[in-house]
């Protein structure tokens, strides 16, 4: 399957689905080291995205158009830290994907733009127990897969797998950014909810591409 506008729409619908399915898990992860709203907030946001998608009169011409709709909707419905962070991620990704279809380099650009957006807003680096710990290895893996000649779907699959490992890697970390940092050492031993939601979203990006 090619990574085109239909893929983008499929990715978004699948994202809404997986967030709804994992709503309670994300709430519970956030309850452990945060304030227990991450699943609720993302679920509210992606429901709104789907509503807007359903209301579209015609299919967008470019992938960036879909991602921009996601960005603005998340920004205005999610709130909390995740709202602006994901909002900016999708906004930057949208700017990088003004095309009807993406080749492998284009997929890399999408993921790198998203990561840059998150870092620009949240000022976190890897190892601080945030979603950056999932996005950053995902971007690296995407680069490697593209360099190795992988297809767009291969690139997404590599990114998704790296995000999963990245999410896992947050468990032993003591948070130094975001709400979990208030817990200091007490945040050790818990999976970061934002890293987990990143893992879920990137898994659907790959699945939507048939990978």
């Amino acid at each position, binding site marked *: 399957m090619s990574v085109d506008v239909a893929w983008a729409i499929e990715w978004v619908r699948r994202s809404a689905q997986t967030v709804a399915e994992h709503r309670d898990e994300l709430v519970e992860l956030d309850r452990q080291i945060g304030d*227990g709203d991450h699943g*609720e*907030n993302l679920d509210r946001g992606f429901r709104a995205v789907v509503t807007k998608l359903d209301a579209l009169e015609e299919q967008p011409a470019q992938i960036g158009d879909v991602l921009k709709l996601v960005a603005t909707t998340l920004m205005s419905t999610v*709130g909390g830290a995740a709202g602006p962070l994901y909002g900016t991620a999708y906004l930057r990704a949208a700017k990088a994907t003004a095309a009807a279809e993406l080749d492998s380099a284009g997929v890399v650009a999408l993921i790198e733009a998203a990561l840059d957006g998150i870092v620009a807003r949240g000022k976190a680096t890897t190892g601080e127990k945030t979603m950056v710990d999932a996005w950053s290895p995902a971007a690296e893996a995407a680069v490697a897969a593209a360099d190795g000649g992988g297809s767009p779907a291969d690139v997404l699959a590599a990114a998704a797998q790296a995000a999963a490992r990245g999410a896992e890697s947050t468990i032993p970390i003591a948070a130094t950014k975001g709400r979990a940092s*208030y*817990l200091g050492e007490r945040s050790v031993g818990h999976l970061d909810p934002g890293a987990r939601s990143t893992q879920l979203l990137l898994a659907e990006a790959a699945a939507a591409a048939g990978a």
Partner: protein
Amino acid sequence: MVDVKKLINDPRTVVAESLEGFAAAHADLVEVHADPAYVTRAGGAVNGKVGLVSGGGSGHEPLHGGFVGVGMLDAAVPGAVFTSPTPDQIAPALQAADGGKGVLAIVKNYTGDVLNFETAAELADAEGVTVRTVVTNDDVAVEDSLYTAGRRGVAGTVCVEKIAGAAAERGDDLDAVVAIAERVNASVRSMGVALTACTVPHAGKPSFDLPEDEIEIGIGIHGEPGRRRIPLASADEITEMLLTPVADDLGLAGGEQVLLFVNGMGGTPASELYVVYRRARALLEARGVQVTRSLVGNYVTSLEMQGASVTVLRLDDELTQLWDAPVHTAALRW
């Protein structure tokens, strides 16, 4: 739709319905805008006055909507429960508060609040509203270090809103109001304790699990666990654990004057807050510090959490005068 033991109809509508009730009960004071949700003074912006806006997650009532009115805020922006509001709510509130002299946004230091207000300020700026932001961070439970997102903004925010509100009301310009707000923030410290967790409606279960004989010291106001968990202790002991770091961090010296503010987290009886106040005051007096102003009650809450926080604000003549200046809001009035 109710599967959690609360006086609500549906976790998804509780904030909107509560705002409807608030609007109807205080129609003389406030106007509540729905979709996007924000609260303004009944008359709207005051021409020629610096506007004051604050906001944050819901569940901390009366903060912030209860502080909208003469002498305090011009607008407040309530997010979902414990979730900072979104830029598309905040931006129109900033615009609505502008009386032509610019707007001060008072933001509690949380990543979400800071980011959403940041974006909103850009949006409002694009509409020609000058926005300055003061981020409150009075919670000494959290170190302001490389290893945290910085100290949190908690109950001391009320002091910033009241005093900056009075400064704006007396006609200070934006720079001066910002300076006063920053001065109050620099002079106020807080620390809190939880005896029980609270239950966020959409989560349906307590925000953390706490055994019957343990308490959380150094909590925030979003139902997060505290810095450490200790065995249940007496009110006097607990108060000392809260007051000492607050007073130490302020570096209070004998002869200084302070405002002592004992804040309930929502589910603690007033009688217990006064037991805490009694001890906190005695400890301050033992340091030679004079308590010249007091506030005791539920002002910055975490839903129905049982617990309290102790806030101390270092006073000088100007801050005392501004604290005493008239205020007429749903939750604070004199």
